[in-house]
């Protein structure tokens, strides 16, 4: 029993879950309003887009690459979908948006993946170029202004709940229906990563490229799959956030700067910073963790201008802790600083 307990408590996800609870309780001690059902649902609602983007970036990080263009993909696809649908006089719901945005997002991200894979460039550098390009494209070619002209079918989507509760302060609130998309995406990614040959490939490729290539995996293929999934989920987050979270308009600079929060959440969720380790549950918990902290700060009366500082501190502290832990556990020999760059 003690061995099992220790194994259970040693898991990163369990520690993170306990940390989320502990931090929530501490914030609740200072401000009782934080510990309410409405807050839980608000945090979940705010987590939806970040969770989708985090799940998307997970396979990319597993390969040991970093992408930041996904936020631009989300902005461009949602804006393009809206412009197209609006011109055709579309009055339906979210389905039409998803139908256009999802393939478009996958295609743009696939382009990033293909360019980096074929020319052996770091994904990060290419994605930085695309990041700038996509936001420039939105602002110059589509619309420099926010678009409030929503179709009739989307009106009321903001208050579409799965579970409804009455809160004394905010009134009727609940679990937003968009959470279904997160659950579907999480289950799908978990199944692929856990039970398919290609899914295991992400872990092997991130753990040791040489071994993976000799086993018969192709980096080009894996990277393309990872980036396509990344783009598709980012596009989904882009169309959903407008309706389920804070915004009720289409924004040419949607999520600009949010890439740091997403990467921070995924890394805090236990995804190895060198690739090869990470889990779906970890990503979801990491996203909730960042949401609890950033929202909790507001409940504690801290100015929102301090949020980025706190996220930055968390990232740096987390880097230090994981690195020290890896050193204590005697890390993987292939990960020591000496081999840095040799596989590049």
């Amino acid at each position, binding site marked *: 029993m003690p061995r099992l307990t220790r194994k259970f408590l040693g898991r990163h996800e369990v520690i993170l879950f306990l940390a989320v609870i502990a931090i929530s309780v501490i914030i609740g001690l200072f401000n009782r309003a934080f510990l309410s059902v409405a807050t839980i649902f608000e945090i979940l609602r705010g987590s939806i887009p970040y969770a989708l983007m985090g799940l998307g970036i997970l396979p990319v990080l597993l390969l*040991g690459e*970093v992408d930041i263009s996904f936020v631009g993909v989300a902005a461009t696809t949602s804006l393009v979908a809206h412009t197209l649908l609006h011109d055709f006089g579309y009055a339906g719901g979210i389905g039409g948006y998803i139908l256009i945005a999802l393939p478009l997002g996958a295609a743009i991200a696939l382009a990033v993946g293909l*360019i980096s894979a074929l*020319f*052996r*460039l*770091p994904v*990060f*550098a*290419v994605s*930085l*170029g*695309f*990041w*700038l*390009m*996509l*936001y*420039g*494209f939105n*602002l*110059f*070619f589509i619309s*420099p202004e926010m678009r409030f002209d929503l179709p009739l079918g989307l009106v009321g989507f903001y208050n579409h709940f799965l579970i409804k509760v009455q809160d004394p302060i905010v009134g009727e609130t609940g679990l937003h229906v968009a959470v279904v998309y997160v659950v579907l995406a999480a289950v799908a990614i978990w199944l692929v990563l856990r039970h398919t040959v290609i899914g295991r490939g992400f872990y092997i490729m991130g753990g040791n490229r040489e071994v993976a290539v000799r086993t018969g995996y192709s980096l080009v293929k894996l990277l393309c799959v990872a980036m396509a999934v990344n783009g598709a989920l980012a596009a989904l987050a882009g169309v959903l956030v407008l309706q389920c979270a804070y915004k009720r308009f289409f924004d040419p600079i949607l999520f600009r700067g949010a890439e*740091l929060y997403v*990467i*921070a959440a995924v*890394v805090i969720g236990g995804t190895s*910073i*060198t690739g090869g380790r990470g889990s779906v549950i970890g990503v979801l918990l990491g996203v909730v963790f960042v949401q609890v902290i950033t929202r909790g700060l507001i409940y504690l009366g801290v*100015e929102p*201008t*301090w*949020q*980025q*500082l*706190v*996220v*930055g*501190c968390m*990232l*740096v502290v987390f*880097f*230090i802790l994981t*690195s*020290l832990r*890896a050193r204590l556990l005697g890390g993987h020999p292939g*990960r*020591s*600083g*000496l*081999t*840095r*760059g*040799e596989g*590049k």
Partner: protein
Amino acid sequence: MRIRSKSRETRLSFSQVGLAVLERRSILLLGLLVAILFTFGTTTPRFLSYPMFRVITSQCAEIGLMGLGMGLAWMVNGVDLSVNDTANLSALTAALTLKHVSHGGSVAVGWLIVSYLIALLTGLLCGTLNGILIGYLDVPPILATLGGMTLYRGISIAVTGGRAVAGLPAMVAVVGRGTVFNIPVPFLIFLGIYAAMYLVLNHTAFGFKARMVGINARAAYFSGVNYRRVIMSVYMISGLLAAAAGIIIMGRTRSVAYEYGTQVYIVFALLITNLAGVTAGHYGITAAVLATLTLQILSTGFYSRFMTLPGGPFFNNFLWGLFLVAVLVFAQLLKRLRGKS
């Protein structure tokens, strides 16, 4: 058989001449520079004039200094994404010091120097944190400096509440807008730092060690080089250079804002590094300076071209993103071409 091999030889030597030109990155860049100057000179009125020269040379220092730091990191298989935010944070510390000690818009020269030293110290500290994370804790450079970037920008936002710090004493403008013999001071600073970097990289033990670590850290380790310390020093220098860039920005704009340049300056720094052809263990610093000038002329040319358009700055950003991807691909193709022959 004999003939075939001979023809191959001639073909090889012919392509070798072409490659030699391509490989001399400085010559390539100089050609590019002249071509761009010619294009803008003939199409844009009053492009080849003293005011334009002054604009270009006084602006190139800030991106150039960040680019030099980025190039150093690139040379040891790393990257420093925090250069721009280090620059802004360093300038912020100097600006706050100046605000504290100045009376009615004037400040003693001593205090000005003290504030510059504080800025440099801030840059050094930022660089040290990056260096510890990358060199000693083996955090991948992209993520480590992304974390550093978030942290430094976060500090700037938290301290200023997201507002710009303006109304600095007029004396700070000397570094940003002053001229000596009609040559802008920022450009002179840039050239001075270039000379110093050239000497350090090519004529000191540290420069040699840094190049060794870039080529093969393991081999360097077995030759008795403390590669961790070398990597940390590289990021410290990068932080110092960024702080110098921040001081120049503060002088040029007479204000400090956390968001100054946050969209394009990292792209510029990466472009300089890639245009200059910096690879692991190889850093042609003259090429980096030429790349900086090329980029700045291009940037100023674009600016005078598109700023009159509605939404011009956005189109500018779009072009820079496209340009970065194109340069990355081109540099890689060049490398592949060289590898084949």
